[in-house]
């Protein structure tokens, strides 16, 4: 092989101790040893920062701190305490509200935009860059800008409403804890603006992989525009649609930075923009009187279970239909 020959030439051969050690250790053992040498860094990092914390989260959720240091078993006490906290239910409701609104707004919009962009013959590059640009901003920049637009006294959005003679809004700080609250809609709008570029580009790539003959055949059969979308575009991109749906729900259930920055870390009026991850943060680090790693861990375990059950069930349900 040419490659082998060049390699030999490139390597001014020193004596090969390798041949000698081969006598002591079998080649298989040597192979394994060097493989573990290559693996050790990543395995240590996974152990310290991923595997061990997973176990620790579960054990901590069943423990309580002992006065003077250390932990002792506490049974279900942490779980019992947090489910009696009204903020717990409020933040779950908000998170579900955010997830559902993000499905209505943040999931459908990028797909529609991708279909639209895919039909255009001009300015595609420009429009793609436009849609993706906000994704690259530091989230704090984008969110502080939206907080400025949302400001009830001097914000741009209320001014637009005033020009249109529409009632103004307090946006993120609009009181009210109804299931579809203005506070959460405001958070979703900012979040969609920031994040929709990624999904749009993934859909675009999927749309470009649809064979054109399918559309041609459908057109010959007399299928109109909408039935072409329904019977070709959607089934052909089904896998991506399902994948992104799942990834988006898992991501939106962990929403933190949007609520945190837009409400100045406060969670909105009557906690109506508080998310579950924000509550974990507050349990663990902010609420000094009730600051408690164990309650935070219990909430983390619950969120972990909810997400696992959701993704497991979702994968199962979508696989079922496929078979």
């Amino acid at each position, binding site marked *: 092989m040419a490659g082998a020959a060049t390699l030999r030439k490139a*390597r001014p051969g020193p004596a090969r101790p390798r041949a000698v050690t081969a006598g002591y250790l079998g080649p298989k053992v040597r192979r394994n040893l060097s493989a573990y040498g*290559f693996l050790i*860094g990543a395995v240590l*990092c996974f152990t*310290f920062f991923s595997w061990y914390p997973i176990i620790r*989260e579960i054990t901590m959720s069943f423990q309580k701190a002992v006065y003077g240091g250390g932990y002792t078993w506490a049974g279900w006490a942490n779980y019992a305490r947090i489910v009696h906290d009204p903020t717990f239910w409020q933040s779950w409701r908000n998170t579900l509200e955010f997830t559902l609104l993000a499905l209505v707004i943040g999931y459908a919009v990028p797909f529609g935009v991708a279909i639209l962009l895919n039909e*255009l013959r001009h300015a595609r590059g420009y429009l793609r860059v436009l849609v993706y640009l*906000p994704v690259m901003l530091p989230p704090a920049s984008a969110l502080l800008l939206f907080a400025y637009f949302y400001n009830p006294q001097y914000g741009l959005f209320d001014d637009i409403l005033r020009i249109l003679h529409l009632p103004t809004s307090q946006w993120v700080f609009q009181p009210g804890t109804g299931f579809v609250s203005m506070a959460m809609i405001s958070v979703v709008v900012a979040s969609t603006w920031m994040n929709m570029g990624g999904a749009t580009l993934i859909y675009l790539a999927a749309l470009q992989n649809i064979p054109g003959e399918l559309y041609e055949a459908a057109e010959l059969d007399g299928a109109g525009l909408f039935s072409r979308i329904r019977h070709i575009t959607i089934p052909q991109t089904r896998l991506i649609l399902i994948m992104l749906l799942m990834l988006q729900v898992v991501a939106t259930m962990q929403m933190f*930075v949007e609520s945190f920055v837009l409400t100045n870390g406060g969670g909105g009026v009557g906690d109506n923009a508080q998310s579950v991850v924000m509550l974990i943060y507050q349990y663990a680090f902010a609420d000094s009187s009730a600051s408690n790693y164990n309650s935070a861990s219990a909430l983390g375990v619950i969120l*972990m279970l909810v997400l696992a059950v959701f993704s497991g069930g979702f994968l199962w349900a979508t696989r079922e239909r496929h078979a």
Partner: protein
Amino acid sequence: MAGLATASARVPRRREASSTTRTLISSAQLNRRTSKIAYRVILILVIVVFTLVFIGPLYFLFTDGLKSTQEAIATPPTLYPHHIHPSSYVQAYNRLDIAKLLWNTIYYGFGALAFQLVFDVTAAYALSKLRPALGNVIFFLMLATLMIPATVLVVPQYLTVASLPILHVNLIGSPEAIWLPSVANAFNIFLLRRFFDSIPGDYIDAAEIDGASRLRILWRIVLPISRPILAVVSIFSLVAVWKDFLWPLLVEYGYTPTRETLNVGLFQGSYGTPQNLLIAASAMAAVPTIIFFLIFQRNIMSGLTAGGLRG
């Protein structure tokens, strides 16, 4: 180098979608007179609406920082700064210590990138080409962490970083608190391993028979072929550090001089900072990524779709 050249040629290139493929609406249909007009109208509408929606906010991001504080909070808001105050950019730069925040973010980002490239590449190489005993178990355990989102684990992760088990080292406030956890990224390992798997074993066997060490094989044969996937992993890892908020808020917050990232620093600085300075600071924080994106847009956007979901 003939061998390497053929090797890279054999790795399948990504298919570029041609712009001539048939889409929902056929070109023939578009060429009709009435459709042509409709298409023009829609095209112009789309361009105008998209520019307003996506550039509009950025316009205010960059111009509102030029206003005076009174003008920035005036009702009704002014569409453009009537009196231009470039000094608010200077004030914001000094007040929020943008230079330091930017430097911190870049330092954390490239450090995390270096750690990930070294540890994740070697690990994926070992899992793909050396296949040690229990390698598949390790790989499975790594992939399993994809099911458990990072934000759920912040509390035990924070406590672990505050006192590493066995070693009893406190990493809080040190850059390693960001660098080392970033290595535990199963997605990297998955992408890299899948790519390494596609490299024909012949090249490696040939080099091995020749007596090249495994490190040398990795360096001289595997890595040169893997440039596309390394680019994808690098962009993902830089963007991840750049956009992260909760973790740097926990581990790098509250030091003097500041060790915060841009994101956290901006948020912390927002308390009590006049609105025009805050917007100016946000604009300055956005400039590096906008430039980075405009330069590397092709790689970033294709990396997103190639590495993202074609699994």
